[in-house]
């Protein structure tokens, strides 16, 4: 187990804790029946950790990912991201947090099909209000970081699956977010390409990037330094890999 801050409501997380959830719960109202997807998750992730969140389907890992990604708000409990409590923020404020603090990588890449790789990577910067020249420079830099410096003007359909996912990773990195949040990043890739993407994640982690990855594949989770397992909306196990 990692060093854990004794956290009580009213406290502030220690400065090197990027993600802190306290009794985080999320309930859905499914036509009169209340589904408790998360039932009080306490999770702390420090800067520059590489964490995999695992669990069978229905364990609440997607719900947790949506909450960590600020796409959703909890029914109760606290969520602190990079020293700021975000669990009670309004819609537009959450959009700003997503833009500044979180880099999403999706299973299905979610690239704009008619836009070039460069333009796809520029997207978060458009919403950050950067001017065109800064955007181009930063997006090109991010693409070079994932080894796609020579594919900038290609459209997604002119790229392989692994290259598409790397464009998506570049897009996630371009705003220098606090966390890189990946949802089944290798779910649509063959095993060779999956290894390639895992290598990119490992490199980014080594460069200091905090990485949170949701997956149900044990061999993919094995790439992370720490594996958190969810079951029935609660943390069932939290293992640090022996270095």
């Amino acid at each position: 187990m990692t060093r854990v801050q004794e956290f009580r409501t009213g406290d502030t997380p220690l400065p090197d804790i990027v993600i802190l959830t306290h009794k985080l719960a999320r309930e859905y109202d499914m036509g009169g029946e209340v589904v408790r997807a998360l039932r009080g998750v306490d999770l702390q992730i420090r800067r520059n950790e590489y964490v995999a969140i695992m669990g069978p389907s229905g364990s609440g890992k997607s719900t947790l990912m949506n909450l960590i990604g600020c796409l959703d708000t909890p029914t109760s409990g606290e969520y602190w991201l990079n020293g700021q409590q975000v669990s009670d923020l309004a819609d537009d404020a959450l959009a700003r947090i997503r833009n500044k603090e979180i880099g999403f990588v999706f299973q299905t890449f979610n690239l704009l099909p008619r836009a070039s790789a460069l333009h796809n990577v520029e997207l978060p910067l458009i919403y950050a209000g950067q001017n065109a020249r800064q955007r181009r420079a930063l997006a090109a830099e991010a693409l070079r970081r994932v080894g796609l410096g020579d594919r900038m003007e290609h459209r997604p359909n002119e790229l392989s699956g692994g290259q598409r996912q790397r464009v998506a990773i570049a897009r996630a990195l371009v705003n220098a977010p606090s966390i890189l949040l990946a949802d089944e990043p290798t779910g649509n890739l063959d095993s060779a390409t999956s290894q390639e993407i895992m290598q990119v994640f490992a490199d980014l982690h080594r460069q200091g990037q905090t990485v949170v990855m949701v997956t149900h594949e044990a061999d993919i989770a094995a790439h992370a330094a720490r594996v958190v397992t969810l079951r029935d909306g609660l943390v069932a196990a939290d293992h640090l890999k022996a270095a």
Partner: protein
Amino acid sequence: MSLFEAIRLGLGQLRVQKLKSAFSLIGVFIAVTFLIGAWSIVNGMNSYMTEKFAGTLVGVNTFHLRKRPNFTPNVTDSTWRSWARRPRITFADADAVVHGITLPVLTAWASEDRGDVEAGTKKVAQVSLNGATTDYFAIRNIKIDEGRPFSPQEDKAGAAVVVLGYDLADRLFEKRDPLDKYVRIHGIPYRVVGVAASRGNLFGISLDKFVVAPALSPIQREVNPPGVIDALMVKANSEPEMRLAMDQAEAIMRSRRHLRPRQDDNFALETSEGVLNFWAKINRILMAVGPGLVLISLVVGGIVIMNIMLMAVAERTREIGLRKSLGARRRDILRQFLAEATTIATVGAVLGIGAGIFLSILLNVATPLPATVAPGSILLGVVLGGGVGIVAGVYPATRAARLDPITALRQE
């Protein structure tokens, strides 16, 4: 996201979805084309009417004393019958008015009918035959190109001399010099003393197919019963003087006709205003119908754009979810789709302006209808087109902005 970015995005969508966009902007395109085209016709007609039509047919600062008005839109049968019962304008009436007006004016008798004119073996039918006095040329602003107008002596004596319109001279004599040759009207020969300069045409009808002979020449039998004229033309130096002269003419005619104070005039004093009133009535109809048609096509165009945008929002739900997850706020998404709708509509409007201008040029060249593009209509076209885009885009854009990012991202 800046407005500029949003517009660029909208143009980008237009480029990648050409066919769909072409359909969506067709409504606005038609509306604006019609707006520019119809407005340019009205505009062209307006200036044509005031500058040429009225001036040519009646003349500036000129009034005609007639039995009944010449330009008579939509009169009832009973009015028409009462006009038909009025006494005609006699030589004596005309003389009395000419001598009674105390202001410096030009006056001329004028009577007109249509008939054949022959020269040698050539014959031109449906020529305007005019019996008139010397100042007719000055009042109607008819310039003499060759020869001379008939003289006051010929006028008084009723000499069988004639001035030919430009086209008529051309058709009767072709390349030969018509001066001092003879034309025959109803078998009676008239010596040609002059040919008028070309007066062009009015709605495609030549204004150069006429003859003018002295009122007392044998032509009087062609144009009117004995002792009677169609009109006495009076041209004053200015508009107020014309009004005064009209009052005097009215007073003289009323006393000659022994009309009681409460009785209406049984003669007409017609100015170019009368002609313009006639046009104003047509104009009012166009102005009432035109905007309605434009409005209907704009509404249809707006509905089309709204539907296309709703389709776009449904199709691009995932894209919207992605954009939101990358940090787009509600207003960013709203702005994106509003800009897209407005861009489509504005492009439609701009194309419509182009087509409208083309249409009006085509009308000018290919038909006698005069058309001039009104600068205001271009501005209005752009404003209306863009406005329709905004209005039609609000609902789809709001729907897009309200999408929940999680559900939107999950959408296939």
